[in-house]
């Protein structure tokens, strides 16, 4: 079914939407691994109904497992069906532990084969990225055909971990059929998405866009088959530095 929607935008605000419709699946927006630092149990009487704040929404998805046993059962079913086995095995190479709720520290990170629980705030920021993804996987936060929005997921990750994160994103798309929207400034991450989407045979489902500022307007260009243009932009700073190095000024 195709639906035509008219949006009226003025003064940076949406003034009117011609046809209001709701998506059948949820959108999870992961913009910053520091979202984990503010995580806390939400009392049942304060349940978030209207997710106006994407961080609250993400946090509520992350702590879901502790409140809903039916979700737990469903997840166990998915795990036993090997659906996410491959993804978990890969995450475990970096993040073998799990997020747990603990009376002493509140939310903590418990390493596998160890009783030590670290306050979730104190684990490295790179690791937090993987903990978020693993927790969402384990507590059913990722829905079949759902949507994830990732804002520069490479932030805080060493290039080697960027490659692994990109592989996980590709596998999640393949296994769950999720719609994944992400932006990046990292040539490592971009290339990894290209290579892993080809490796897992979903490259034909990927679209690449480049945003350019042209006289105060952002132009979005489809560069799916001319991705070289993106790398040109990412290579430019290296050239700038070399020019700087040999400049007489």
């Amino acid at each position: 079914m195709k639906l035509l929607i008219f949006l009226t935008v003025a003064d940076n605000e949406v003034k009117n939407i011609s046809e209001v419709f709701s998506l059948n699946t949820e959108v999870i927006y992961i913009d910053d691994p520091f979202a984990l630092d503010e995580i806390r149990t939400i009392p049942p009487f304060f349940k978030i109904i209207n997710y106006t704040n994407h961080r609250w929404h993400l946090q509520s998805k992350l702590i879901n497992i502790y409140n809903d046993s039916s979700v737990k059962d469903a997840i166990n079913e998915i795990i036993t069906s090997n659906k996410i086995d491959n993804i978990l095995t890969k995450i475990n190479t970096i993040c073998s532990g799990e997020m747990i709720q603990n009376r002493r520290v509140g939310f903590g990170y418990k390493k596998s084969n160890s009783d030590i629980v670290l306050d979730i705030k104190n684990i490295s920021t790179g690791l937090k990225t993987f903990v978020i993804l693993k927790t969402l996987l384990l507590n059913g936060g990722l829905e079949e055909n759902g949507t994830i929005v990732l804002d520069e997921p490479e932030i805080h990750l060493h290039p080697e971990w960027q490659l692994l994160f990109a592989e996980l994103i590709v596998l999640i798309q393949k296994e769950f059929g999720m719609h994944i929207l992400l932006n990046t400034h990292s040539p490592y991450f971009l290339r990894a998405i290209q290579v892993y989407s080809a490796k897992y045979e979903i490259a034909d489902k990927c679209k690449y866009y480049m945003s350019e500022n042209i006289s105060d307007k952002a132009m979005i260009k489809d560069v799916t088959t001319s991705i070289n243009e993106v790398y040109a932009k990412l290579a430019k700073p290296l050239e700038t530095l070399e020019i700087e190095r040999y400049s007489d000024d």
Partner: protein
Amino acid sequence: MINLYDYKIFSKNSSSLKKTSKNDADKKSIVYMTSSKINVIDFDGVKNDYIANLKLSDTPKSNDALFAGKAELFFIEFKNGNMKNELYKVKRKIFDSLLIFTDIVCKGVSYTRQKVNYILVYNKENSKEYIESLRNKLEKDEVHDARNYDKIMNSLSQFANIELDIFGLRNQFEKLYFKEVYTYTEQEFEEKFVKQYETNI
């Protein structure tokens, strides 16, 4: 070190680097990946002579050239075009060439491990058909080449002073069958190999 030209099968296949770099897959446009006149042994010719009386139903594959430096030998393979479907062929050429070479000189791989190097000279796919196909939708298992990505990769490897092993050949063969394994673009091959050995002719 053995003198290759003491072996008749090698000396009768004496050739030039340019000739062994010839790619005539497309008869209408014959491509040479180097114009160097350095003397080498045409190893495809060696292979053909080696199997001449064996009545084989399948022909072994072979590296393009064998070059004798002062103290070391070099197998050289030229590959023009998309490597995606070619890598397994490159590896088969390595195995077949090593077996033929070690049989001819009556030495084992413990000798090649100390005295023989391997160079793959490759070229990014740039045929008209390939460039044309990029305008269409991506295939499900396709990664488009991006010249500017290579630029970033090369800059970083230069800063680090490392030679990239982009097809994993060094990882697989160095210190096992070859002393050293190099993967060069045409341009790198000219700078790092041809220039060095042309002055020694």
